[in-house]
């Protein structure tokens, strides 16, 4: 197991290296300069010198790699001038994390409850209603929900503030203003979980071990809780674990709609103003989240399923 994790971590480092290298060169291909068109030549020279942009591209790459290895991600050039990008990103993490954590706390239970209900009441009117909602939630993108929720509940009915309250992090007022973005962020996840769980749980409920469990004297509810649910969770790891790691990701459009200064908008904004280091660092951040999440998915499988944990070769007579 430990060897496996080490192997995976090594592969992760190599993948990271490849990705940031590609990013480095691709970003330089994008037209645009650090100093805008009307800038004075002195300023341009000074800027290029400060950010090593006067060196040949290959040398820049070497400097960039050397800095990266020492966790020096450089400074933001224009968006947050002279601030180390590490600070820019880490400053934005808490808010994004808070928002997405709330969203997950809402998404997972609601999604699971809907999935379980639709299995237990399969083919009833309730099940059909849930299935319809699931299709609706999956097909409509979150920014439309964001905009509609904002228009109806914040603008027309005035139940919620239109924008996120940024005065303090933990006040009730802040939480209240987070409800609409949380909802907008949650619908897709709820639908995905409900859909997966419905399919998996239905299969588990009709399995032989459920029959045996009932034959053992367990009630339907006991059998479902003790046997069916856990078995149907194995494939659900694939959906839920990435949700946890995407906590840090943020959503560009929802953040824009509700005026949330989160991580989501960082990449497009930094690209448009040629803030190279900020772009790369943000991309690096996302890449590492994605890779770790994939690693966690694989590891979580083995947590839930002993057959994966122990490998195949141990069957004995």
């Amino acid at each position, binding site marked *: 197991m430990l060897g496996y994790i080490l192997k995976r971590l090594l592969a992760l480092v190599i993948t990271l290296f490849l990705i940031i290298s590609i990013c480095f060169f691709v970003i330089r291909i994008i037209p645009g300069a650090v100093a805008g068109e009307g800038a004075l030549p002195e300023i341009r020279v000074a800027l290029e010198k400060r950010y090593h942009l006067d060196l040949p591209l290959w040398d820049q790459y070497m400097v960039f790699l050397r800095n990266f290895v020492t966790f020096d991600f450089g400074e933001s050039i224009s968006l947050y001038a002279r601030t180390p990008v590490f600070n820019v990103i880490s400053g934005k993490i808490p808010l994004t994390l808070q928002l997405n954590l709330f969203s997950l706390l809402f998404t997972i239970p609601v999604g699971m409850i809907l999935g379980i209900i639709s299995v237990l009441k399969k083919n009833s009117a309730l099940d059909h209603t849930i299935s319809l909602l699931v299709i609706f939630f999956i097909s409509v993108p979150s920014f439309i929900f964001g905009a509609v929720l904002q228009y109806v509940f914040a603008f027309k009915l005035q139940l919620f503030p239109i924008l996120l309250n940024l005065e303090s992090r933990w006040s009730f007022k802040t939480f209240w203003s987070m409800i609409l973005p949380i909802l907008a962020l949650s619908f897709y996840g709820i639908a995905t979980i409900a859909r997966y769980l419905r399919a998996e749980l239905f299969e588990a409920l009709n399995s032989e071990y459920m*029959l*045996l469990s009932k*034959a*053992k*004297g*367990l*009630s*339907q509810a006991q059998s479902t809780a003790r046997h069916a649910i856990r078995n149907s969770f194995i494939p659900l790891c694939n959906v839920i674990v990435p949700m946890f790691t995407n906590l840090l990701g943020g959503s560009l459009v929802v953040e824009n709609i509700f005026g949330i200064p989160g991580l989501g908008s960082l990449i497009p904004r930094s690209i448009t103003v040629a803030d190279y280091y900020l772009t790369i660092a943000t991309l690096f951040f996302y890449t590492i989240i994605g890779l770790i999440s994939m690693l966690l998915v694989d590891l979580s499988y083995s947590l839930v399923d*002993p057959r994966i944990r122990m490998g195949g070769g141990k069957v*004995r007579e």
Partner: protein
Amino acid sequence: MERETVLQVNDLHLHFKTYSGVVQALRGVSFELKKGETLAIVGESGSGKSVTTKAITRLLSQNAMILRGSAMFKGTDLLSLPEPEISKIRGNQISLVFQDPLSALDPVMKIGRQITETLIINKKMPYKAAKEKALELMDSVGIPNPAKRFNEYPFQFSGGMRQRIVIAIALSCDPEILICDEPTTALDVTIQSQILDLIKAMQKKKDLSVIYITHDLGVVANVADRVCVMYAGKILEVGTVMDIFYNPRHPYTWSLLSSMPSLESKSEDKLMVIPGAPPNMLHPPSGDAFASRNRYAMKIDFEREPPLFKVSDTHYAATWLMHPNAPKFELPEELRARFADRMGGVVPPKGGAL
């Protein structure tokens, strides 16, 4: 010695609603199970063997409807009990062993917990006592080194071992009735006989009444005291194992027996087959369901259903051939010979009053 009856099934009618119509799975099944005996229910696939036991234990799928009939167990009708009551009986007083041990155990739960679970829930045992009892059970069904295997998962067990575990689970709460639904079909032959021996030993030890569902007549001869022959949702013939093997009366039983190879069969011998296929239970035929495949069928077999005729106190058969007015004829000589060599040279009594 007349033994007391533990289970009495009366006139059980059961339908399945499907998209293509109503399947009449059971059409008046009646039998009784006496204390300590083994009752084998034999028949082709789809004859209603498993459905009968699932109806008794109420483990049927949602689309099944019990139309009428009763299953009396200790003075209560199992078929009309509310769900919480029947689930107290299942596993406690009536236990089941299923066909496929590979899929019957929960793949992600340790073997030990799957056994203790029953004890904890049914008998309200504390975990420690349940664990001790589970280890004892594992030992008694022949699992070597139970303390170690207690903490293993089903995938670490072979098929035969898993079936032993399923039997241990079934016996954990000291049931009175054990229903074995083709418990050896999914296992290879050597393991089969081990499992049969285990069930027999357990039955003797605990004075269990066993319902044994199978389509393997070899198994029937090995384990059963009495036999019900089922076809198209009905019991066609019922009798002691001697009655059925030495003096079968229903043409269907004849066909079943003659389509079984014997040790003396040579590889070039053709195995007797029953022509045709079982009837479509969406539209069961009006007369004897077996009539269209029966070379001894008479006109009346196609028109009216035969009642159960009494052959002896223990032996009944539902065929018009048993009617006093039916033409008399012998059990076909070729069958008699086949039965004889299968039964180790014991020739059945000639002219068994047919």
